[in-house]
């Protein structure tokens, strides 16, 4: 369940931790309380150890082996990593993923900002918000299927609409150049409402008095937007971008349902590469090594983003 929500937490948690450190007092524990605590913790400790902690370590271990699940694994050190980094296909998968992120994030974020502002200015209606969120609640598989049908080059309604307007229909998911943007389009449709609601919540934290003051001073709409809304929204936008970019790098479901990496390997994103290596070719070592490389890249991407946004925090 790698939804965006999960990642939303980390930033806030770091802040909480820093606070705690400052006021650390010497704790005393009673046996009774400690025993009760570990009884309450027991189920989650088992779950965490079995499905998070040990697998993470085991993943590193597997990535140092050649293993097809059926025969014994052979230790090969960092050979998987070396091979992957030298492999044209693997580097291509990163390039494809990056292309996808660059199609997805800017449009999604800009649309979301516009939708949020429209809602903020016009209506607080729960029904409008409920509709806006709807696509995000749908299974990725359903959304993928739905758009395969809508974007069908021959009889899909999108091309029929385009042709009715006198233009040529596109190949969409079937075209070498259009496949990645098409998948981005699908996920923009799915995520823009959710992102808009996050930004909408941020807009509501901006005090009305600021807008009133600006209005009295004779500021027009675009001045208000660039001088008040954007600077005050910056932390929210930073947060939205960090989380959506990380989610975007992990695109899998939509590719699996719509193009399966094709045409040729135009949509072979990293997660599809890993899935295909692991579960079609049973190269467990190579697949885990690839996932570790993705993990490292994501850490670097997050750090860069946090750095970028923190540097500007003095804005408000």
């Amino acid at each position, binding site marked *: *369940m790698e939804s965006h929500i999960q990642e939303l937490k980390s930033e806030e948690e770091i802040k909480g*931790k820093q606070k705690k450190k400052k006021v650390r007092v010497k704790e005393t524990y009673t046996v009774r309380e400690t025993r009760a605590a570990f009884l309450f913790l027991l189920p989650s400790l088992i779950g965490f150890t079995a499905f998070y902690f040990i*697998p993470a370590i085991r993943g590193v271990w597997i990535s140092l082996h050649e293993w097809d699940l059926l025969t014994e694994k052979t230790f090969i050190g960092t050979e998987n990593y070396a091979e992957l980094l030298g492999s044209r296909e693997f580097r291509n998968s990163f390039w494809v993923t990056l292309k996808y992120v660059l199609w997805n994030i800017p449009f999604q974020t800009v649309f979301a900002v*516009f939708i949020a502002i429209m809602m903020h200015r016009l209506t607080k209606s729960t029904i409008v918000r409920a509709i806006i969120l709807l696509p995000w609640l749908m299974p990725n598989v359903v959304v993928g299927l739905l758009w395969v049908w809508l974007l069908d080059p021959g009889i899909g309604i999108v091309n029929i609409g385009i042709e009715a307007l006198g233009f040529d229909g596109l190949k969409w998911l079937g075209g070498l150049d259009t496949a990645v943007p098409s998948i981005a389009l699908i996920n923009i449709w799915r995520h823009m409402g959710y992102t808009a609601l996050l930004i909408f919540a941020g807009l509501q934290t901006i005090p009305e008095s600021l807008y009133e003051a600006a209005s009295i001073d004779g500021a027009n709409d675009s001045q208000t937007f660039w001088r008040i809304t954007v600077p005050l929204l910056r932390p929210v936008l930073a947060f939205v971008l960090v989380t959506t970019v990380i989610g975007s790098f992990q695109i899998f479901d939509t590719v*699996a349902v719509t193009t399966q990496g094709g045409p040729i390997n135009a949509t072979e994103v990293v997660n599809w590469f890993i899935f295909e290596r692991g579960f079609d070719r049973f190269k467990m070592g190579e697949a885990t090594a690839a996932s570790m490389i993705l993990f490292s890249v994501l850490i670097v991407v997050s750090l860069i983003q946090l750095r970028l946004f923190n540097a500007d925090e003095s804005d408000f």
Partner: protein
Amino acid sequence: MSSGSSKPVGKMSINRILLWIGLVVVLFVTLFPFWWVLRTAWTTQGQVFNDTSSLLPVEFTWYNFRRVLGLVSTEEALAAGGSGQSLNFFLFLRNSLIFATLVTLGQVFFSSMSAYAFARLKFPFRNFLFTLYISALMVPGIVLLIPNFILVLNVREFFVETFGLASDNPILGFSGMIAPFFLMTPFAVFFLRQFFLGINKEVEEAATIDGASYATLYFRIILPLAQAPLATLGIITFIQAWNEYLWPLVIGREDSVKVLTVALSIFQSQQPSGAPDWTGLMAATTMAIIPVLIVYMIVGRRVLDSIQFTGFK
């Protein structure tokens, strides 16, 4: 917040009209694809390829829904111009319900137990453990996928060999599918801990003086007071479990445990090279959406509020 406060009531500026037009376009773009699913599902199999631009169902029919629920005999299917291919999604609907319900019950309950310990009890390594849990939020799902796959595979093998169970035993299958989500997720623990921290301690203190045990405090005070966040978490968990794809795809391929998302995607990719069965697929898609819609209609406000929470608590 509304611009009415800075503009006289009744004056519709051009800006405002443009904004309304924009919002209507957004709502249309959001809703139209859903209508197109229904429109296709209500159209007869033959007509879907002939009348492609009609905005309304062509030759309105419930036939596709009946087909998807396995209520149509092969002869009737052939007579209606279909392939007669079996499309029984009823089983997968049931499996999805089992999977999502069990994941939700287990995850919310067990996560609330540990959230209580983290929020209220003092014990050694508390901060260390909590930080460890939270750091798991950073790990991409794909990193854990293969080790967890191998783990569940090994445990299954063990049970099959030791107890002589059939390898497609549904209880075994469901257990493996549910296990990684059943006992905790870092998000659930974090989410509930935040709420528990906000609950006033006075009632608990009074109860402690009266000799209440920790179990009593948890069951009689914390859980009742936290009904709203528990429900919210339950809803989010249910919807996410219902939508889960990759994990059931690798671990739950047998028909006895296959969930709807997996069934739908496999059905689509296994189409013979001819034209896909769009009417059937869209009817099945509708059925995959309906449970989420029902939950959403009943408790939509909670879902909306939870988004504000995850963003800005």
